[in-house]
């Protein structure tokens, strides 16, 4: 038996939106998994043991002139965040720490996640590295990455010919 199967589904790191087919002959295994889920959710385990690692969520958009990268980093300050660039990618790393005051006390809910993180985002086109700007406000990091002039020109229009 794989140990992962014992971990209740609701605590697994990422929820994958897989459609579940409603099978009238649902397998016995599924039934057992559900039993485990119910068992663990009823169990009064110290909630802080069930925390997952912190991974910031990212949004990445573009227009003709620039890319804009946004990352949700609640509870961090600009000093905790490290943004670096290399040839073809940008890396956001840092650590989300628990506030010291919290450390003593009984937890009723522990849903927030902590820990160090590192996300590497590949950059699809040349960036004008001298004009990259990063700002941080309300727990949201925004990085503006202007495209280089060459990259702006690179958009090619391909004519579609009709077959005869």
């Amino acid at each position, binding site marked *: 038996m794989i140990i992962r199967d014992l971990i209740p589904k609701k605590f697994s790191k990422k929820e994958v939106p897989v459609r579940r087919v409603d099978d009238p002959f649902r397998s016995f295994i599924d039934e057992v998994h559900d039993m485990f889920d119910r068992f663990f959710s009823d169990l009064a385990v110290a909630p802080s043991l069930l925390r997952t690692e912190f991974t910031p969520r990212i949004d*990445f958009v573009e227009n003709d002139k620039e890319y804009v990268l946004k990352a*949700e980093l609640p509870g*961090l300050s600009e000093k905790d965040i490290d943004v670096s660039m290399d040839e073809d990618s940008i890396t956001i790393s840092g650590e989300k720490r628990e*506030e010291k005051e919290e450390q003593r006390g009984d*937890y009723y809910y522990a849903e927030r996640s902590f820990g160090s993180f590192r996300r590497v985002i590949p950059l699809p086109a040349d960036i004008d590295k001298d004009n990259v700007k990063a700002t941080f406000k*309300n727990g949201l990091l925004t990085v503006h990455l202007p495209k280089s002039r060459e990259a702006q020109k690179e958009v090619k229009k391909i004519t579609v010919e009709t077959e005869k």
Partner: protein
Amino acid sequence: MAEVVKHELKTVTPAIDIIEKENHYIMIADLPGAREDSIDVTINRDILTITAEADFDIPEKMTEIYAEYKPCRYHRTFRVLDEIDRDNIKASYQNGVLSLVIPKADHLKVKKIAIEAK
């Protein structure tokens, strides 16, 4: 009174920690991107509600490459009992994290009883 829900924004349940201390509770909510003036904490009868709007300010006419989140409305409710001192709740917001310090009602506070030596 029923609240009018803005349908254009997705409602997201923020992650919350609740910690009990000797004389108060601390409730901490991660609300990344929430505008300070959009955050509302209300107690109506025995329901404590936290709402906020995340203003991600995504410029128009941009194409999404990755989208792991959307502009959203944070909403979370809790039932509170008479165990708290609802007039003295303190809230603060910094770097996308809302902290509420909720004092316990007087009768629940830890009292030290002095022992008299005879």
